């Protein structure tokens, strides 16, 4: 119980959940766990089952693309106060990228399978979560598009 109370507090402190009604947030707490990743450790790998998402409390996570026969390519870094992972929301629930801790990472992991069940039963919770996820997804897609523009208009080493 002490651990659950602690997680509830940590969840409330994270920007993703901070403005959610406490009773709605409380429903999520049951799907949460505390996690710690050492530098270089994978949070998840491309093609793996996407059954969690992650609230980063401390440290930096690199989103990587695996390149056969060569070192992976980091395409984005996610830091403190941000979230990583939305593949748990979208069938077939598999990761599209690797995510690896770039330094000591402390995170709250949220069990997507557990949460999906709750979202089906509680649409208000679903709305509250999607309301938070969709702007982040939109922002990251927009940023990715702008980076493509920049890559085509700025000088290249290649």
């Amino acid at each position: 119980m002490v651990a659950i109370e602690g997680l509830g507090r940590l969840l409330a402190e994270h920007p993703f959940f901070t403005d959610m009604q406490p009773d709605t947030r409380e429903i999520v707490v049951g799907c949460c766990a505390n996690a710690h990743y050492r530098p270089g450790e994978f949070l998840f790998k491309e093609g793996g089952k996407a059954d969690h998402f992650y609230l980063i409390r401390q440290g930096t996570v690199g989103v990587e693309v695996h390149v056969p026969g060569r070192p992976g390519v980091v395409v984005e870094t996610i830091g403190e106060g941000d979230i990583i992972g939305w593949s748990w929301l979208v069938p077939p629930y598999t990761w599209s990228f690797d995510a690896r801790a770039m330094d000591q990472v402390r995170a709250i992991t949220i069990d997507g399978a557990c949460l999906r069940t709750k979202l089906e039963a509680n649409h208000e919770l679903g709305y509250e979560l999607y309301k938070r996820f969709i702007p982040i997804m939109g922002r990251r897609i927009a940023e990715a598009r702008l980076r493509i523009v920049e890559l085509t208009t700025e000088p290249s080493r290649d």
Partner: protein
Amino acid sequence: MDGALLPRPAPADDPMVPRTFRIERRVAEVDGCFTLTLKATDGRPFAFQPGQFNMLYVFGVGEVAISVSGDCRDLNTLTHTIREVGTVTRAMARLRPGDVIGVRGPFGRPWPIEEAYGNDILFVTGTVGLAPLRPLIFEVLNRREHFGKVVICYGSRGTHDILYEKQLHQWRGRFDLQVHVTVHSAPSGYRGRVGSVANLVKIARFDPEHTTAYVCRSETMTRPAVQALHDRGITSDRIYVTLERNMKCGVGFCGHCQMGPSFMCKDGPVYRYDTIEDIFTVREL
């Protein structure tokens, strides 16, 4: 070129006649970019203000507008960082120390400095955009006591495309300067940030109500940069941007660089954002 054959020094008051400068040093920067250090052949000093540009003339090839990227307190050295993009700049890339080029200028409105006294300072730039901002950064650091926090947000394509990398390292080592660098992609194991410059604006520490921001990016990338600044609460009247058009004469005669009522060569290239906000996204301009 033989010194005896050099054109006579231009009268200081004739903006259409180039002065001749000899290349003292050429430094290869990131691929496609190089820096020329120039000395006036007539030995006279060259004064400019941060943000101003010169028309650099490769004899027999043509002229191109390039911002000054050196220290405005060094009146005897003129520094330009140039990106190879066209006929003139490619010809310029082939020049070596000892060669002579023509210089007209300085032209354009500079970055304002005194207006930002008492404020935090935020520089937002990417790739070669750091070059036109560097004289301003030098000057802000020269007058460091007049400002609060000073933050540089810089983005580049990859880990090998960071312009003035040594300089950024030096600046990052100062206790009175925040330097945030991001790249578009990096090899696995890279310990720095990967992502957009706009994300750097989000994490930078400054007081939004008392911050002046200077943005030097391509026009396309200026829009999201300004949006990120607005999101942090910096109003348009405290944001300065720089614009570029095809500048030719440098003195507002030819109209090549006209945008609406403004001639960028003399009314710009630096603008306070609220003064151009209405026409900035008008495509026909």
